[in-house]
């Protein structure tokens, strides 16, 4: 599903974010990405949804060679990748419904289908009855649910979640994790960067630790492994 071969990423300011990362993530896996801040987790994820291009190396996602992608093809690859952010990144003037529906409008889905599917997904993430609320009228947990609904509404093959529980209290975080696990059970590959030791240690999954731009650890049912 996701394959990286000797990926290097050097930013214009000279920072070596990744230094020779090779990894294979299979379809339907659930992977935690852990490591200190600034170790390269965000770069790792940005490469997957083509916000950044590798300086060196090969990366393919869902059969697409992401590094060699022409700019105008980028939107079409992103449609197969759902992205979830710590700061939610919802359209502030759009209601919960409109935020989720937007992802479907982009792929020119008929309106009738958009309505059906959007309501279905909002119900799945536990936001039934809140579809007309603006992000500002929702709690952090609810906003993240909208973000997740938007990420999954088009049935993407992969979900990239960058610290999805970073801004949420523990109880809300577990709600979000249950939701992600359920999405994973339905067949979606999930790559999630996190600093949440509790979650990683209790909900055991594959753990990839990135330190100083290289993979320090890769365990099938790993632990968080860092002191806070």
């Amino acid at each position: 599903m996701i394959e990286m071969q000797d990926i290097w990423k050097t930013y214009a300011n000279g920072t070596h974010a990744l230094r020779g990362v090779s990894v294979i993530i299979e379809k339907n896996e659930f992977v935690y990405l852990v490591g200190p801040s600034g170790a390269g987790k965000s770069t790792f994820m940005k490469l997957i949804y083509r916000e950044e291009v590798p300086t060196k190396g090969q990366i393919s996602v869902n059969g697409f060679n992401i590094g060699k992608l022409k700019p105008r093809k980028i939107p079409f690859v992103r449609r197969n990748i759902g992205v979830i952010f710590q700061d939610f990144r919802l359209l502030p003037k759009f209601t919960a419904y409109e935020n989720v529906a937007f992802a479907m409008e982009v792929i020119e889905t008929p309106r009738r289908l958009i309505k059906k599917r959007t309501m279905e997904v909002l119900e799945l993430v536990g936001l039934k009855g809140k579809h007309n609320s603006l992000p500002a009228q929702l709690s952090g947990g609810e906003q993240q649910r909208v973000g997740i609904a938007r990420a999954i509404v088009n049935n993407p093959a992969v979900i990239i979640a960058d610290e999805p529980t970073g801004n949420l209290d523990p109880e809300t975080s577990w709600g979000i994790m249950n939701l992600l696990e359920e999405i994973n059970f339905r067949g979606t590959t999930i790559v999630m960067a996190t600093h949440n030791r509790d979650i990683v240690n209790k909900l055991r999954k594959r753990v990839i630790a990135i330190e100083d731009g290289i993979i320090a650890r890769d365990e099938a049912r790993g632990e968080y492994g860092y002191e806070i």
Partner: protein
Amino acid sequence: MKFRTILRHIREGTKNIIRNGWMSFASLSSIVISLFILGVFLLLALNVNNLANQIESQVEVKVYLQLGVEQSKVEELHNAIANMPEVRSVKFVSKAEGLELLRVSLGEDGKDLLEGFDETNNPLPDSFTVEVIEPQTISFVANKIKAINEADPTVPITNVKYGQGTVETLFKFTTAVRNIGLIIVAGLALTAMFLISNTIKVTILARRREIAIMKLVGATNHFIRWPFFIEGALIGLLGSAVTTAILLVLYQQLVQITQFELGLMMIKLVTIEDAGWLISGVLIAIGTLIGIWGSTISVRKYLKV
């Protein structure tokens, strides 16, 4: 692009105006204010131009004839002048009419002067009053008439006059006034464009995060751009339509007051019918184009994410 997507963009563009209420209001206000000022000066320039036209159109060529000429010779000359392509009309003024006109134009002062003159001892010659289509061609036409006389001495012309010197100065003046009006209007139009597109840019700057999010969800640049395009066009159209309506209503009032209540028949303002099309055409075109231009240019900048 599928038809339903076009509909979606129109819907979305309209919704965005309401979603970003205050920003839309800011853009609208800047359009209304700038275009209003532009419109006022445009009307002013139109009227100045109209006034210049009125003054210019009063110039005419006087062709004085010899005394006691045969009727056939006079008619022959009349036709020769009337057939010139530059000439709008030729009017024969008999010596009696000439005297009457002189009496009217001299008024009280002329009473003593013209006393004692009647049909029997009228000193004035018969004459033609020639009006030209383009006032600027007046000296050319006058020379052409003189040339007839020079070519054929039997033609009964004694003198051709059109106010040499005075007419040229008048034309210089009206041309200068027109050009100044044009420069002011053009300058204001540019200022208005700059002001409006700047306001729109600022309102879109506030939405660059929104654009970045749309791109992350997989929207193509076209998909993002269209609603902005429609939003800009609608705001431009709405703003300029409102401005035009306000301007024309006010102008109608002004025409009413000056023409009928104050009875300023001398200064004839351009009628609302004549001004209306030009004003609404220019303002709505500028408003809409600037609306589109401002939003498209600004969005393009933020699409490079």
